[in-house]
């Protein structure tokens, strides 16, 4: 039943696919990989960056396989000359079996890798920077910096329980010291997104939602709210600081001095807060 004008050699598809896939994967690993978001400013961000690379390396050949097949099929198998029907091929159970086993294997490997990355306690990136509920998947070191992130419409404020419960409007953390963010909200659902640190934790009223990370060098990072929280959601962003050990000590001392007059008016430190019901605010 071979039709001279419209047959392609399956081997040709495989060769084109192999060549393109190798090129794409090399480009992903060596050209794109170092710049893959969200960067490497913390162990968690780096873990996410690696995951993004692994996924791209696995998925690119799949996309290329489908596209190569379509490109070749669409150019070769056209209605030419006299209009007639194609060969009545109903299916191929062996090929279907290979496809099912193949896709299942890829999926299981990806899920296993994702789970490993999530729990890999040795890499100090366990939890991958996502909100983990009231307790961390793997405990942080004893000297970790504890920071409470209080979300409200439309700003984040930060409370440092190890430093006299001081509350600040600027977030500063210390490089090479694990920081544990305790995110909560006093009105609606927000999401604390410290992009460069690879942190995203929903702030939910009545919930102490925890994630940890270890920034690896001094610098700044972007903070944004990532959950729609009302009219000024788009303006709910700021810049956080990663300071050296000495820099952080003097920064927190200054914050405590400044906040001294108002500290006694703040509610006592708790893991969650239940303010009085708010009025309707549109």
């Amino acid at each position, binding site marked *: 039943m071979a039709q001279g004008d*419209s047959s392609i050699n399956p081997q040709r598809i495989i060769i084109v696919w192999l060549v393109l896939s190798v090129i794409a994967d090399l480009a992903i690993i060596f050209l794109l990989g170092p710049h893959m*978001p*969200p960067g490497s400013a913390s162990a*968690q961000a780096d*873990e*996410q960056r690696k995951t993004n690379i692994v*996924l791209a390396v696995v*998925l690119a050949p799949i*996309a290329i396989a*489908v*596209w190569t097949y*379509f490109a070749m099929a*669409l150019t070769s*198998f*056209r*209605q*030419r000359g006299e209009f*007639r*029907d*194609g060969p*009545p*091929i109903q299916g*191929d159970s062996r*090929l*279907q079996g290979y496809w*099912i086993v193949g*896709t299942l294997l890829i999926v299981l490997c990806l*899920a296993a890798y*994702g*789970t490993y990355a*999530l*729990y890999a306690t040795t890499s100090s990136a366990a939890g991958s920077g*996502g*909100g*983990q509920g009231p307790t961390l998947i793997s405990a942080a070191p004893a000297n970790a910096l504890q920071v409470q992130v209080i979300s409200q419409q439309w700003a984040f404020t930060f409370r440092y329980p190890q430093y006299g419960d001081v509350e600040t409007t600027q977030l500063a953390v210390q490089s090479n010291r694990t920081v544990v963010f305790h995110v909560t909200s006093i*009105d*609606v*659902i927000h*999401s604390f*997104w410290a*992009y460069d640190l*690879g942190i995203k*934790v*929903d702030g*939910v*009223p009545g*919930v102490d*939602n*925890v994630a940890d990370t270890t920034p690896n060098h001094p610098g700044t990072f972007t903070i*944004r709210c990532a959950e*729609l*929280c009302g*009219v000024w*959601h*788009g303006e709910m962003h700021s810049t956080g600081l990663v300071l050296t050990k000495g820099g952080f000590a003097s920064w927190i001392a200054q914050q405590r001095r400044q906040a001294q007059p108002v500290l006694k008016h703040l509610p006592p430190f708790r893991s*969650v807060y239940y303010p009085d019901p*708010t*009025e*309707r605010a*549109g």
Partner: protein
Amino acid sequence: MTTAAMSTRPSGVPRTNLFTGLVGLIIGYAIGIWVGRRIGTHVDFVSAIDENDYSVFCAYGFGTIGYLAGLGLLSYPLNRLVGRRPVEAVKSESGAWRYLSVSTDHKVIGLQYLWGIGLFFLIGGIGAMLIRVNLLRPSPPIFSPGQYLTLVGLHGSMMVMMVSSIILGPFGHYLVPLMIGARRMAFPRIEALTFWLTPLFGAILLTAISYGGFPTGWTGYPPLAIQANAGMDAYIFAFFLVAVAMVLNAINLMATIITMRAPGLTWNRLPIFVWSMLATTVLMLLGAPCLVAALLMETLDRTSGTTFFNAAHGGSPFLFQNLFWFFGHPEVYILALPGFGIVLEILPVFARKPLWGYRVAVSGLLGVALLSFMVWQHHLFVSGINANLRPFYMLTTELISVPTGFVFLAGMGTLWRARISYSVPMLFSLAFFFNFLIGGLSGVYLSDVPSDVTLHGSYFVMAHFHYTIMGGLVFAFFAGLYYWLPKMTGLQLNETLAKWHFWTMFISFNSTFLPLFALGALGMPRRVNTYAPHFQFLNDWVSVSAFVLGLSMLIFIANLLWSLAVTRRPAEANPWRSRGLEWQVPTPVPVTNFETIPVIQAGPYDYGVPNALPVADLSGAAIPAATGD
């Protein structure tokens, strides 16, 4: 086929129609406001929040009843209830009044759906254009933050509500009875009701504007939704009607497909489009009640001060998130499955080959339907709900790509050694595979917890679901439209304009949504009205592409007007030489569809099969037309 009632009305205007429905709506609305105010004055909570949501909900509720009564949809059940012989609705058999009054003809309802859905698609699309206007510059925004969020919420809600019946509405209703050899749906009056709810929920959603809009987007999360003004009530009531329509549609289609197949139409001869409708109805029937429950609790929290979602008084915002996504994730497959059905229905016709691996394709559809109920918490990976559940949802979410892969396998197998002709429906179907592949593979990033931590809530998610819904479902919708419109209207569309529509839409769609993946990965959150200055180039690129995408829709509308109103070239009965049963009936399709109930003799995709029988015997069966209905 004029009835006695019609002969007394020479103009052919049915006694009840859209306009009597509107009168009923206004009367009901006024009564509802009055009742709501009477109730509200006795409720302490109303004076505490200084806003009476009772009057809003009562107005919508009574308005709905008045509208349905005005349309004449209530007379049958009410007459039955009091034991009187129901007066058969006046059927206008021809002319525009058919489309402006209640009809129980599934073909009229299919076309009513098509025009109604088209209108909403246009309104939702204008919303998208305005959103992209606002994002032309990083700041200051062009619209006020409240206006912008209302645009985002209306665009999202309108599109989600509209696309959930974009294929099931027009094509499901028009084609399923024709494809299975039936003369009508199982419950024609319920079928009419589900359509007439469609313009109503669209209108109610739009009334949110008069209350100052709503700030929550299409997800309606509390506590923000509890805090919001009365515009939120419009969202809640509209979505409630959508859920009701979904359940009714699901029961109707399911009963039709299971019980009304023509003799000889065994399950392994059922067209793949009908299979996709069946799988979709399972999702609708099981998912929509959860949405109703969530919306009911939200209504009570808003109107009566209950605390289902108030953490300070023992409730939890997580409850809504879980209920919403238990509906919401099957919902996205309610959107995807009909698209799979349409492209797999169309590919064999233009490849001139049987559908490759029919059983695998069917099990793919059913597998997606089954798995879609086990994945909902992937929307909540960073929410703080038990973190150790995440690997399970990661696994189930990634597993769903296996049955989705079956659809790709069937499509690719069908093209092997085929004799492809590149007509417009085929182009749209092929574009579906291109777009959905990108949409599907980007979904793997969102299912993987570590990479989802960065991508969740960002433009990456936005790009992902626009690739699956716009790039998948809407492209499949247009494939179906170009394929079946000649049968549905009896008229040919202009092919040159259609090709222009396809190429401008395909290119500008990808140019619009591909950069959004990058924007999201680089840190731009969804639903913001201002953004960092260094994102301006990509945003401007996206906006300009989106305007071209809008322009491509105008080409389509121009084609529609030109072909259906100006040139009116009659279409052949079977212009694509399809084996589908729906193409074997004359054009225009007779009111009773089939003169006699057909006897199915062969599968619908036996292209190229030597000595294949015609798909059905349309003449031999012994059931006369009069008793079939």
